[in-house]
């Protein structure tokens, strides 16, 4: 039996200076990032409630607890890059400009949905989001191919960024993709969002090393980093550093972001493998609370204004439920359309 994962306090994260980050980003950008995290949280909560009401079917994987990570990525690298992620894809689609309306309508299986009601919760897209992938690790070669295209086109302004869970590190697609990206100097950033659980199997029972990026990356001649996924500032500092590095070197990078989902693996997972005390403890490290506190301390916002932001996002998500509910079902006449591209 290998030893348990190191506790968060024992981990060594990428060094970052919160005060410096606050100063560098400024009030407007920071409030916008807080708003985006509240947008994700509120969307997921409302979507979950729609699921409980029987409005949404299939599998449903919430990003609740992990919001700081992809929000920080967008702040650090911007939307004009290639993105790919797993089935836990709602947040990234929102951050890349998909509307709450089209995403909620997709969850409701309506014709106005993000993928015309064909993809559902696990398959959201935007013009730069190559999808939520339903197969663990299936998106890693896809993102690697996007990096290949950038290099083929001699595009040095963009990168391909791939999000995967800790469970995907065990897949062959992970190994083959990293080997290819490192071999061919592809501008790819691989981000392992280590939420400590591959469904109900703890990461220490699935992966043979403790530090998913820093222990694995050297085997591919790549750099590896570890970020604190609960801390927006640490994520932002880290991603900004890596983005610059990849653009300069065209070398792929592997990142582990330690986080914790506050929900089960999917909506049908009661999470019995995790004690209530452990969950309670991790929920005190809520990335939204941490950012909110920091901004309040920096006197950029007060708690009343946070409540207002939260309410606006809540109302938007509720309005999206209404939009979805009132949207037409896909016409069965269209069922067999678009199996092949023209």
């Amino acid at each position, binding site marked *: 039996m290998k030893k348990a994962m190191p506790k968060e306090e024992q981990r060594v994260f990428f060094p970052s200076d919160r005060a410096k980050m606050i100063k560098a980003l400024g009030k407007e950008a920071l409030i916008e990032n807080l708003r985006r995290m509240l947008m994700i949280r509120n969307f997921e909560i409302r979507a979950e409630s729609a699921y409980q009401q029987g409005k949404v079917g299939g599998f449903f994987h919430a990003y609740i607890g992990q919001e700081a990570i992809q929000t920080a990525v967008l702040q650090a690298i911007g939307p004009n890059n290639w993105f790919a992620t797993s089935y836990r894809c709602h947040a990234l689609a929102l951050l890349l400009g998909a509307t709450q309306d089209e995403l909620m309508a997709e969850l409701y299986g309506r014709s106005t949905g993000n993928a015309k009601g064909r993809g559902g919760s696990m398959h959201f897209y935007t013009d730069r989001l*190559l999808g939520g992938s339903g197969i663990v690790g299936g998106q890693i070669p896809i993102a690697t*191919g*996007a990096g*290949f295209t950038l290099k*083929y086109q001699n595009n040095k302004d963009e990168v391909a960024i791939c999000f995967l869970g800790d469970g995907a590190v065990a897949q062959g697609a992970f190994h083959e993709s990293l*080997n290819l990206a490192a071999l061919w100097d592809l501008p790819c950033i691989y981000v392992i969002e280590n939420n400590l659980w591959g469904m109900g199997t703890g990461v220490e029972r699935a992966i043979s090393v403790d530090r998913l990026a820093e222990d694995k990356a050297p085997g591919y001649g790549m750099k590896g980093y570890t970020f604190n996924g609960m801390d927006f500032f640490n994520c932002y500092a880290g991603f900004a550093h890596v983005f610059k590095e990849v653009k300069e070197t065209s070398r792929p990078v592997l990142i582990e972001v330690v986080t914790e989902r506050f929900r089960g693996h999917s909506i049908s997972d009661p999470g019995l493998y995790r004690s209530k005390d452990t969950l309670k403890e991790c929920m005190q490290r809520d990335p939204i609370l941490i950012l909110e506190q920091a901004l309040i301390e920096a006197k950029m916002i007060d708690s009343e204004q946070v409540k207002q932001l939260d309410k606006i996002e809540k109302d938007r998500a509720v309005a999206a439920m209404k939009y979805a509910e009132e949207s037409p079902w896909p016409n069965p006449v269209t069922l067999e359309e*678009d199996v092949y591209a023209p």
Partner: protein
Amino acid sequence: MAGKQIVEMREALRQALDEEMTRDERVFIMGEEVAEYNGAYKVTKGMLEKWGPRRVIDTPIAELGFAGLGIGAAMTGLRPVIEFMSFNFSFVAADQIISNAAKMYYMSGNRFSVPIVFRGPNGAAAQVSSQHSHCVEAIYSNFPGIIVIAPSNPYDAKGLLKSAIRDNNPVIFLESELSYGDKMEIPTEEYLVPIGKANVVEVGTDITIVAHAQMVTVCRIVVKELAKRGIKAELIDLRTIKPLDIATIMTSVRKTHRCLLVEEGHVFTGICAEVAFEIQEHCFDDLDAPIERVCQLETPMPYSKALERETLPNVDKILARALAML
């Protein structure tokens, strides 16, 4: 005056690749040993020298990785041609082909098409045993979103590969190791062969024989043998398996009233099973005899040539079955 040239199948394929790479800067070829080694079967001979390593790319032995990378490249604006040294190695890459390439355009609500060609030798060669001999067409034809092409001669191979590269969907392009050296006279000018059109290779009135790929070559001998006995067989080369050109088959069966299906792959849920079902759907009243088939027996491919010969369809078996139907 249209020029003619006599070329082997491998050269016809190479010309198709070369012409499409000339026509479209987004086309590249990637696979194991395609560049410095000049291709395991020499289909890409000389291409590295002409096009350089940016567009003729040797990969590590990682089919899942480079097939998936190709799909990602196709989704982001390129038009990859991925060579499998044997289509049996595509099983290692199956998740990427099936879960990503086949489903992406539909699943993404038309947002991302996947214009990619997977090509390489399919089915049996000579005594390479079971892990290198499987015919994959029945497997991949089961996935909506995939086009499956299996040419039988150099003319079709060139014209269909060019069409496949220009198509905006994932194409499984099946070649035969035993056919790479087959020679044929083809035009020197550019031409295309359309996807989804079967070809009536021999015109006849007494029985329709339907085959694809290497089996068409075998069936040509069968047709000659039947002719010696005064029987006029019509031979149809499917060329494209999916989408299936059932109309050409229907027209023929309505004329001959008898149909024999031949397939190198296995009997169970093979291409013949689908073709036969569609014939009975459309031509039930036209048939004067039950549809028959000659396929590979239900065994993994044995190594010994004495056994290999027995499990595959051959001239004797096909001829005997055809004669029994008349």
